[in-house]
């Protein structure tokens, strides 16, 4: 296969990001191949979560460009490119409603309507991620942090995304639940994962220390 056949799932090209006069990232570059699973690590405030926000178009870098599947993220393309991404926050706020309502809601959006049949996978995914079935009718506000993380993850999987941006997604999980999450992704060559974690054992295809690379690093 040539490079043209398979562009990187995610490419950051010379990203510079400043907040309030402080440079968070300087000329930061990164390429993540399709199916690759990487972990971004580094001290708090080093810009790990900002990288995920740039990929999602939630933060617009001062310099540089973001490419998803070879297409540049712009004001016009962001809406279609987001439909390729799954984002699970460290402390996800899933909005109001029961777990079932949370899982069904995104299928009301035009971008996801054709995927509604994926909801049939819900029972298997609950079992796989060690969640009890009776949780499905509970208000999401009654869930623990770890349960919310797994519900957010299941929601992303149901949407059939291929590129996962996971921000400390196993931080509130016990050992067994964490293993269940990691074991779901590890053998899947079709899923790309960019994980932010203090735990370098999460996804170990590649571990990138932002503290070292943020000041002009280039990682391909």
């Amino acid at each position, binding site marked *: 296969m040539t490079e043209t056949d398979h562009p990187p799932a995610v490419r950051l090209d010379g990203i510079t990001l400043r907040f309030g006069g402080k440079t968070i990232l300087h000329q930061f570059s990164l390429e993540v191949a399709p199916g690759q699973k990487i972990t971004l690590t580094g001290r708090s405030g080093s810009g790990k979560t900002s990288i995920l926000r740039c990929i*999602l*178009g*939630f933060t*617009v870098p001062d310099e540089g460009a973001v490419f998803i599947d070879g297409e540049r993220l712009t*004001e016009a393309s*962001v*809406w279609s490119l*987001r*439909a390729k*991404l*799954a*984002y699970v*926050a460290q*402390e*996800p*706020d*899933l*909005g109001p409603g029961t777990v079932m309502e949370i899982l069904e*809601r*995104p299928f*009301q*959006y*035009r*971008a*996801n309507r054709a995927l509604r049949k994926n909801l049939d996978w819900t029972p298997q995914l609950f079992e796989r991620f060690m969640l009890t079935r009776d949780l499905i009718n509970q208000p999401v506000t009654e869930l623990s942090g770890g349960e919310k993380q797994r519900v*957010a993850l299941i*929601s*992303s999987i149901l*949407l059939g995304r291929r590129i996962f941006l996971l921000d400390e997604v196993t931080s509130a999980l016990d050992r067994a639940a964490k293993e269940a999450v990691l074991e779901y992704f590890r053998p899947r060559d079709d899923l790309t994962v960019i994980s932010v974690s203090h735990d370098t054992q999460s996804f170990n295809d590649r571990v990138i220390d932002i503290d070292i690379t943020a000041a002009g690093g280039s990682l391909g």
Partner: protein
Amino acid sequence: MSETIEIADLNLALAYGLLLFPLAIILWYRVPMLGAAAQSVVRMTVQLVFVGLYLQVVFRLDWWWLNVLWLLVMILVADVSVVRGAGLRMRRFAIPLFIALLVGSAVPLLFFVGVILRRPFLLEAQFAIPIGGMILGNCLRADIIVIRNFYEAIRESEKAFLHTLAQGARLAEATRPYMRNATHAALGPTVAMMATVGIVALPGMMTGVILAGADPLTAIKYQIAIMIAIFSGTTLTVALAIWLTMRQSFTAYGTLDTRIFRK
């Protein structure tokens, strides 16, 4: 049918005697609002005297352009109140909210005067100014509630909002629940007022028509028409207020531009 009974200036001065009760209670309980209450009474008096004198001239002249000008001044003052009341930046919100208030007030007003009252001249001062004022006052209150609720709710639940965008929602889809909640809050007082009108309180317009010497059945017809006009106007202005301000309040990437807030 009786005539309108004039209030002599001396008798009006006696009305201020009723202020003894609030004054006594404020002083007795040491409620910290003596200065604010006194200032409000003075402002109310000065503003109404000024408006009364001005409207007397406006009514006597009854020039359509002067009536329009007066209505536009009222809308402009309301516009500034909404932007300030919602804690937002004047530069970004003044024009779209002016349009929202103008349409929300003008459409039901022109319908009321032209279709319901069947007046040949739509901008007749005697009808356009008081009815326009009543509709505008309600539009102002509703716009403050809807704008503040809508943008504050998105700011406060930023994580949930971004989660929705990340799941593939377009901006219109992501903002819809916030729009629904803000509209519900803004229209709530009008809906509640319609449900209790006549039982809990006799509303202003009906009272005014009765005091002017009309019989109660005529008064309720005016009241029913004005309530519907207010409900229609507030709904229109609330929808426009969100729709017209959204363009300058979100980035092209769908995130809320927090520079819209004054603090």
